[in-house]
């Protein structure tokens, strides 16, 4: 996986993307117990806004011989899904990401508080479960999460999750 992560870093250094952070199941796995996932979700800030946000990424992949695989690109055998930071919360999450090490590679990963906020915003069943797991893990700084949720109007969703009862 380190080779795939190095390629993602290279894309940022080449200026194909402004910034990135790993989100989704792999970011959650960094903070909680391992969960079944198939894609490495990379949220990125595009160099240019618009319909062509993914074009430089796909062109780079084509030149390197990395094939598209459904909505992902197979980089060194790993399906990497590039997702433009689609709203203010996700943009902020990318810009405030943490650097962590996987083997010898530095990677950017969405902080637990933002990951929880994104899960609460997305609000599918699996996101609600992920939010619960993150809250239970001890990785989430409640004060920081509260501030993020307040800013993005998501406090009610935290209350709903907490009212839903004791997670088993």
């Amino acid at each position, binding site marked *: 996986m380190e080779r795939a992560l190095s390629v993602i870093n290279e894309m940022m250094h080449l200026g194909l993307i402004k910034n990135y952070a790993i989100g989704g199941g792999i970011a959650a796995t960094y903070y909680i*117990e391992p969960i*079944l996932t198939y894609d490495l979700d990379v949220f990125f800030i595009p160099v240019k806004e618009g319909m062509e946000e993914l074009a430089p990424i796909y062109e780079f992949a084509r030149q390197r011989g990395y094939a598209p*695989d459904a909505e992902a690109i197979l980089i*060194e*055998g790993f399906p990497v899904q590039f997702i433009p930071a689609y709203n203010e919360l996700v943009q902020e999450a990318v810009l405030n990401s943490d650097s962590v*090490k*996987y083997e010898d590679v530095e990677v950017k990963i969405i902080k637990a508080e933002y990951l929880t906020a994104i899960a609460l915003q997305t609000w599918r069943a699996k996101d609600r479960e992920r939010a619960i797991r993150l809250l*239970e893990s001890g990785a989430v700084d409640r004060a920081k999460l509260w501030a993020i949720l307040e800013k993005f109007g998501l406090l009610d969703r935290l209350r709903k999750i907490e009212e839903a009862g004791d997670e088993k």
Partner: protein
Amino acid sequence: MKNDVAKLAEYIFEKKRRRRRQLARLPFEKKIEIVVELQKIAASIRGDNRGRVWPL
């Protein structure tokens, strides 16, 4: 009797929570290895190739 069952259930749930917390403390690299094991298990259950097993 009802009370005993509730206590037993709570004991089991607490054990599960503890186990999850233990797993959460594993190194990132080890967790990724477990994700791949989960992918293999899922593939063997489904018997199809939906969802690729990562080449770690």
